[in-house]
């Protein structure tokens, strides 16, 4: 990034050069800090939940670091490639060690990594926290569809590859999700939430989503789960609190829900008993 100037002034020249380097590095950072909200997106989006926004800012932070370090390394490689092409049969100076320099590029990365780790922990703790909630939704993944149950509300939504189900959830409310799988490993992924979590057989995974803007968002299974993995879609519909209450009331049909549940049980459990019987046969 800088000319390896063979200055006769020695140390003072080096100090000057370092000041210049610092200025060059500091300027864009300061500019970014001042610009605030104009930090580039680096391909990501803030998303629709509180967590997704923290993740987005973490993404931006990582990307700024990546851009600076990546640019530095690319410039160094290009510099070497352009200016140290073989021009003669000369044998260059056989330098092999420069301990201060080597220590610098060991210690500085450690500090950068610790910084990244600290930022990670802050966002992670927010994201995996399970604050008190009024709304709980049980999400069950199966080959190849989803079942959303609203415990205590008598609402069940089931959808398979032929018909994508929709989770309805209220905006500005902590929504507690209990995620399970009936058969193989699935991935519960909502792009607009910048979030995914495995649905594991035999494990109850819990997390909290807090949507901050209404709308309908696409979700999809991201963990390979067999033949129709690519068609295992769902949607998340974030609505206002009043719309949510209305929706619950109009869908709280106990008998219909039970029927639907029965149908799903048959559908999903058709796999499980086979498993057991097959294993027994083998035994």
């Amino acid at each position, binding site marked *: 990034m800088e000319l*390896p*100037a063979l200055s006769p002034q*020695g140390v003072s020249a*080096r100090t000057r050069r370092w000041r210049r380097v610092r200025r060059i590095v500091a300027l864009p950072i300061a500019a970014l800090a001042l610009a605030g909200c104009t930090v580039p997106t680096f391909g990501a989006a803030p998303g629709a939940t509180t967590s997704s926004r923290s993740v987005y800012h*973490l993404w931006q932070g*990582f990307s700024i670091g*990546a851009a600076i370090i*990546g640019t530095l*390394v*690319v410039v*160094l*490689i290009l510099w*070497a*490639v352009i200016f*140290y*092409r*073989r021009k*003669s049969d*000369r044998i260059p100076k056989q*330098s*092999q*060690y*420069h*301990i201060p*320099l*080597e220590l610098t*590029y*060991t210690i500085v*990365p450690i500090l950068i*990594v610790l910084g990244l*780790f600290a930022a*990670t*922990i802050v966002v992670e703790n927010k994201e*995996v926290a399970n604050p008190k909630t009024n709304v709980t939704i049980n999400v069950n993944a199966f080959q190849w569809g989803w079942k959303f149950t609203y415990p205590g509300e008598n609402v069940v939504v089931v959808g398979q590859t032929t018909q994508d189900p929709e989770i309805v959830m209220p905006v500005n409310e902590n929504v507690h999700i209990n995620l399970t799988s009936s058969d*193989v*490993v699935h*991935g519960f992924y909502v*792009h607009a939430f910048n979030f*995914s*979590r*495995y649905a*594991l057989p*035999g*494990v109850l*995974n819990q*997390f909290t989503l807090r949507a901050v803007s209404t709308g309908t968002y*696409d979700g*999809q*299974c*991201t*963990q*390979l789960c*067999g*033949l129709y993995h690519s*068609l295992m*879609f769902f949607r998340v519909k974030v609505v206002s609190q009043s719309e949510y209450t209305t929706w619950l009331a109009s869908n709280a049909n106990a008998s219909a829900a039970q029927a639907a549940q029965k149908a799903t049980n048959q559908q999903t459990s058709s796999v499980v008993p086979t*498993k057991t019987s*097959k*294993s027994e046969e*083998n035994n």
Partner: protein
Amino acid sequence: MTDVLDPPVAAEVHDPAHEEHHGPTGFLKWITTTDHKVIGMSYTVTAVIMMVIGGAFAEIIRVQLSAPNNSLVSFAQYNELFTMHGSVMIYLFAGPFAFGALANIIVPIQIGAPDMAFPRLNALSYWLYLTGSITVLSGFFVAGGAASFGWVAYAPLSNSINTPGAGADLWIGGLLLTGFSAIFTGVNLCATIFYLRAPGMTMFRMPIFTWNMLVTAILILLAFPVLTAGLIMLYCDRHFGTHIFSVPGGGVPVLWQHIFWFWGHPEVYILALPFFGMVTEIIPVFSRKPVFGYKGMVFATMTIGALSLGVWAHHMFTTGVVLLPFFSIMSLLIAVPTGIKMFNWIGTMWRGEIWFSTAMLMAIGFLFTFLVGGITGIYLASPPLDFFTHDTYFVVAHFHSIVMALVLGAMGGLYYWGPKMTGYLLNETIGKVQFWFLFIGTQVFTLPGYLLGLRGMPRRVPVYPLHPSWQFLNQLSTVGAIMIGISTVAFMVNIVYSWKKYPAGDNPWDGHTLEWFTTSPPPHHNFYRLPRIRSERPTWDYNHPDHAAAEHGHHDKNPVA
């Protein structure tokens, strides 16, 4: 350093004429040999064939993805294709190419050994590898087709109910065979490096490639038995009624992920370290300088090896059942030794006299591609960012940047050591055409994947009906994949075109290490004579006695900016 040439030390008392090996030739030689060079060549040819097969699968996958609702292959065929693409590339190409092919040939010569420590075991490794490879691939010819649960075979998708059929069993059996092959090669490399070094070849005079292969071999010994055990458990679950990974039987499916990745993450470095080593041999030779920070490089390699055993669960951040901060910091820390390596490579080129041979171009292409893959890997070490990108094309693009960097390194290794292995150079013009197709193709192939992942495209999907807007980036990626395919064709053309055309001589690149001291190809037991070994560059010291490496600590007062 004295200005007198060190006299060569006679390694063998025999007349060279007596050294000619009077064994069988042709097919009989191939099936009966225990010579590490012949076994290594068999490995090389087999592994490159595997690369071509795996690459062909990749081309079909990429063409299928060039339209949202393409129907070139069925869903079932698609699952088989990406499973076998990953399996062939990881288990049957990259690993065996690194430690079976190049390490097998080069490591004994680099340390002045006559052969591997256990030549017959070495031969067994190759035959296990070949039979294992054929076993895995034969899955395509059985009813129900090849394995279709992804190269990671997550339980319970890989059990006998969700994936019935012989294809999956052949996959397990084949991997057991290649796994044993890897373990035996690991044993062999360790023993060879520890016990068969020539007089004067101390550990800290070993070339970096040999160092990296030592760490790789140790990682193989620690990691592969775990995979072997896991595969046996999986097979028992499938056929003998055990319930290790099945919930109805009281088992724990996520245990498979732990076992798999306990092997799988060291495996990433088992794949990567040999190629780091190749690049570390190529860059100094073509810059006419010693490796910058040789000892730092060795310690960085050891650190990577050690850390790689404690990061497996970063593949499992989204399972919700692992300790996130621990695996996060361990994974982030790997960036430090990897960064040291990157700066050491640049430091080696710094103020050198760089000769842009095909091998060197491949090595520089490696640096750029590995930089992209390395930096995106840092994102994935952060659990919240992993939740965001896990199982999307971001991850696919990340590890393809890494593995394509390794392919560039592998090609560099073939152009660099090919003349030593065969006695003939490859055509440089065709080589450069190959390089540019491979390098540009790699970027055009991987970079759109990052954007697709950020827009939410999941892995392992043959169609994306709800998102026709992803088509353009997918097509771009497909174009890149086709360019990579063209580069492979160029490589084949080069082999045919250059066949026995350009005799290499003993030392075509003014090499540093012992392999450039012997003939091309080396005689039966590698050396008629050896130079004095007083640094990690004995051949260079012999040829350029006035240009030994600058003393430790005597550095330029006005260093790199």
